[in-house]
């Protein structure tokens, strides 16, 4: 799997934990932003969905922090977790949001994010030199795979929305 252009280079365990942690933290922030958008745009169901997703990512972040032990994931995350092109893998695509979006859409966003994260860690497994890094990265691959499967399971609960999902009988309003 080729490295995503702009992705950070991970060589050490500190790099790995830092990057993994930052990915989750970025995801939390992103889902919070989306929750706020949904709140302002009066889509309460989606507020809950995004807040739940944010919470879930927060839990992942805490797990990583725990797993990292003595490694200061916050510090290393800030140092290494920068994507110069594209975004952090689990940052949901803001461009795909819509004020009338449904949980199905959010889960598609989440799915895409988990898949990107999976690809990121897979690449590290394939290319890292440090055995400890490879081993840990493989664990992350497993975790992300689990996340992907989880999202798939959740998606089964939600039907594909009808084509009319974005239809709003009211026209847009001129504000200024």
């Amino acid at each position, binding site marked *: 799997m080729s490295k995503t252009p*702009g992705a950070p280079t991970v060589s050490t365990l500190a790099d790995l934990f830092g990057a993994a942690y930052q990915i989750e933290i970025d995801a939390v*922030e992103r889902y919070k*932003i*989306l929750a*706020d*958008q*949904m*709140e*302002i*745009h009066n889509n309460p169901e989606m507020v809950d969905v995004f807040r739940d997703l944010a919470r879930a990512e927060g839990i992942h972040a805490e797990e990583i922090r725990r797993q990292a032990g003595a490694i200061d994931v916050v510090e290393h995350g800030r140092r290494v977790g*920068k*994507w*110069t*092109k*594209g*975004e952090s893998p689990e940052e949901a695509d*803001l*461009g*795909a*949001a*819509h*004020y009338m*979006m449904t949980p199905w859409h959010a889960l598609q966003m989440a799915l895409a994010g988990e898949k990107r994260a999976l690809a990121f860690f897979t690449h590290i497994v394939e290319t890292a030199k440090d055995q400890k890094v490879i081993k840990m990265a493989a664990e992350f691959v497993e975790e992300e795979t689990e996340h992907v499967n989880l999202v798939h399971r959740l998606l089964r609960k939600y039907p594909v929305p009808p084509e009319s999902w974005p239809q709003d009988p009211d*026209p*847009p*309003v*001129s*504000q*200024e």
Partner: protein
Amino acid sequence: MEEMILTVDTQLACKPSDYRSDVKPVWCPGCGDYHVLMAFTRAFAQLAVPAEQIAVISGIGCSSRIPAYTNCYGFHGVHGRSLALASGLKVTRPDLTVVVASGDGDGYSIGGNHFLHACRRNIDMTYVVMDNRVYGMTKGQPSPTTEPDFDTAISPGGTGLSPFHPLVNALASGANFIARCFAGEPNETAAILVEAIRHPGFSFVEILSPCVTYRPDQKAWKDLVHPAPVGATNDPAKAARRIMTDDGFNIGILYRGERRPYQPKFGRQSLDPSELEQEFEI
């Protein structure tokens, strides 16, 4: 004028979230401007300039809502005049980092004249125009950058007018730094904003920022944008050729000029005001 003491603990102001206010944006979900806001806060964090040393000046339009969403000083002025507000501010407060935010209507239509003269004047500031090729705030009328065949209620069948070319005009008018970004790449955009802000003189950054409500066709932009085939030049003639022939989706820094920024002397007195009456004495 008391001196503004820059704090040493810039560590505090290093996170993008430090540059975000608690005001929740009213932009439509899916709007490119959310990414631009992100790019702003990331750029400010990278520059590590304290939030109180930054002034974000805007006019009217969706993009112009951005100042209140940052934790910097801001001015939400009237339509088309943000560059003038910013010019008066920067000349008298050269210590501030001044970023001007506008849109294609605010900046290129009603603000067109000020755009030309701001490029010409070359005061040290950064002008960010969120271009979505439509008037989003007022229900979807064409802007100067709208394609000639784009159908709207106010111009059925399209305007038939050749779109305004902001980068060409910026170069011709003397802008000292010209770049184009895509909102969908907020980290790249942040990096370019950092360079734009650091570059002395008038830096112009046009950000293609899709309008989810009136231009859903702009979802295709993420597949149309591409890195500029060549790096930035400091030769206006070369830049002119490149910019005149560019397809509108070249992303990157296109021109880095070497003009000295315009900053008249300010704040240093060589004559006491009480002596001014002497010329009238009979």
